[in-house]
């Protein structure tokens, strides 16, 4: 493989790893916030345990979302300086806004939420998880603005050798963005719904304690994945109009993009069917034990569909970095050596893959351990008694 292939593969692998964690973050954040709202209202132990259990899964998942995101952001500067050179005046704006008015706040509020148990007043503590949710969605918005610019360079004009920002509003109303953003957000809800459903089904099947907690969250997961799959499929098909208006041959003559698209649609419909069937029997689902292993079994599917979706979107842009403006091959950092790209490939792909595996091991462990042994929001150890 040459330097260009390695740089592309590095971006694809780190980007996919990043999204595997991000998509669950986007789906779980509102669910944890809703559970926390219930707890703030009722003060019941059941609601508290639910919030802390799902919150612990959320936070464990978030750890890898951050570290993969760090690498994503800097990779533009490291390996793709041709993109910044050509279109930095346009592409840089949404990235800057994402870091300043979305992620900066998200990270700060998440720290307040994690460490604020038993310390912040109830309603302020609750506010932090809602702020985390809002800023996570804002983050998704700005990243999708940046990505949509690559699909269709709206709001920019050619000025000699480079692109200049011409109309900031057009950047935000890009046809490549309008339906893709809700598609991504509802993919998050789908993933979140299926994960909540599956972890609950595991506990119901094993007849562990907390049957009531997991019966409730199973129903919540079913309703969420029902809403999620309906929207994700709806917005998915709604995308074809606007996207093909600016990228008419996106899926023609691009076999990998077409494959990603086809498989994603197939899995999407399957998930939709599963969610529809489950929502019909939602009342009895917690007691129907035969259902539970099946629910656990389908958990990987929404994650796979999410990655296939990105393969369709990004492969469908090739060979362009910016559609019909800048080729990927011309966007790579000039003079990037084989040694450099190998070094960063081993460093980023190697380390992040190991950490991702470790993080999934941890998430599975948190799920199996159940809601009675959760580190997040544990009561602080009582101060040692003074002895004289």
């Amino acid at each position: 493989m040459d330097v260009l292939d390695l740089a592309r593969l590095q971006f694809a692998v780190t980007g996919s790893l990043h999204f595997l964690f991000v998509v669950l973050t986007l789906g779980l954040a509102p669910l944890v916030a809703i559970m926390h709202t219930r707890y703030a209202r009722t003060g019941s132990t059941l609601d508290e345990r639910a919030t802390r259990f799902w919150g612990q899964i959320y936070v464990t998942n978030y750890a890898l979302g951050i570290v993969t995101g760090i690498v994503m952001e800097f990779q533009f500067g490291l390996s793709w300086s041709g993109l910044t050179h050509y279109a930095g005046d346009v592409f840089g704006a949404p990235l800057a806004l994402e870091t300043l008015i979305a992620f900066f706040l998200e990270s700060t509020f998440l720290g307040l939420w994690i460490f604020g148990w038993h310390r912040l007043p109830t309603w302020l503590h609750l506010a932090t998880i809602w702020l985390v949710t809002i800023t996570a969605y804002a983050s998704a918005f700005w990243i999708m603005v940046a990505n949509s610019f690559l699909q269709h360079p709206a709001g920019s004009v050619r000025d000699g050798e480079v692109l200049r920002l011409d109309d900031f509003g057009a950047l935000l109303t890009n046809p490549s963005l309008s339906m893709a953003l809700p598609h991504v957000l509802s993919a998050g809800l789908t993933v979140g719904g299926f994960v909540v459903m599956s972890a609950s089904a595991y506990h119901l099947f094993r007849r562990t304690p907390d049957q009531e907690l997991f019966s409730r969250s199973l129903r919540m997961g079913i309703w969420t994945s029902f809403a999620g799959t309906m929207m994700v499929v709806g917005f998915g098909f709604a995308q074809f109009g606007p996207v093909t208006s600016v990228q008419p041959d996106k899926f023609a003559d691009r076999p990998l993009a077409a494959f990603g698209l086809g498989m994603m649609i197939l899995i999407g419909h399957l998930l939709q069917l599963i969610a529809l069937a489950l929502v019909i029997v939602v009342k009895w689902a917690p007691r129907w034990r035969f259902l539970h292993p099946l629910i656990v079994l389908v958990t990987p599917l929404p994650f796979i569909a999410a990655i296939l979706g990105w393969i369709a979107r990004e492969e469908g842009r090739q060979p362009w970095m910016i559609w019909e403006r800048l080729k990927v091959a011309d966007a790579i950092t000039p003079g990037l050596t084989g040694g450099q790209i190998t070094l960063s490939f081993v460093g980023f792909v190697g380390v992040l893959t190991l950490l991702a595996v470790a993080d999934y091991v941890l998430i599975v462990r948190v799920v199996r351990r159940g809601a009675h042994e959760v580190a997040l929001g544990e009561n602080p150890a009582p101060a040692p008694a003074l002895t004289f």
Partner: protein
Amino acid sequence: MDILWFGVLALLLIGYFVLEGFDLGVGLLLPVTADRDRAIGAIGPFVLANEVWLIAVAGVLFGAFPACENVLSANYEAVVLLLVSWVVRDAGLWFRRRLFTRAFWEWAIALASLGVCLAWGLLLAGLGGFSVPFGLLYGLLIAALFVLHGRRFLDWRLTGGGSPLVTGALAAVPALVPLVGTAGAVVANAAPSANLTVLTFMVLPFVPVLAGAQIWVWRAFGKGPVPAYF
């Protein structure tokens, strides 16, 4: 407008050195710290709010000074070292109580904190065209200042010692020197003023929220029992 945004860039980078400085200093001190749970508990609630300053630096660099962003590719190896070390340090904090043994992750945090300091030395020295050995020495100086700052922070947070403001100012000096040295070149490479106007309009309403959130972290976790999540 370009000077304003250079000010933002400088403030964020200095803020990163002051704030992450004590996190990294405490990380470097772990091998010689007796009560590591309390030391990590002391920095724990601050880490997420501190490290994000550097992510904001990168954001401002992309948005307001895209032409300067080649400093990253020009110092490729240093940036890779910085990122890998940063990632390992964070993983150490998240995983320490949960995976393998604590000692493994504590050593990982210490070594990764050193890696971040050395990477900064190489990167900042690289901006001025200095050699690799000089960069490594500069990195060791940064590490020493961070250790000082980290000790002061622990003293303040855990035993009620004086505030770490002075050591914080010292920790910022290694970032201040190259900022002063490159100020003219950076400002000259600012994005067109139309871009900066858009960014200013978008960010300005959030400045009180950004500042408020950071202050809230200090008010909430500056005193009281040490939490035990990390």
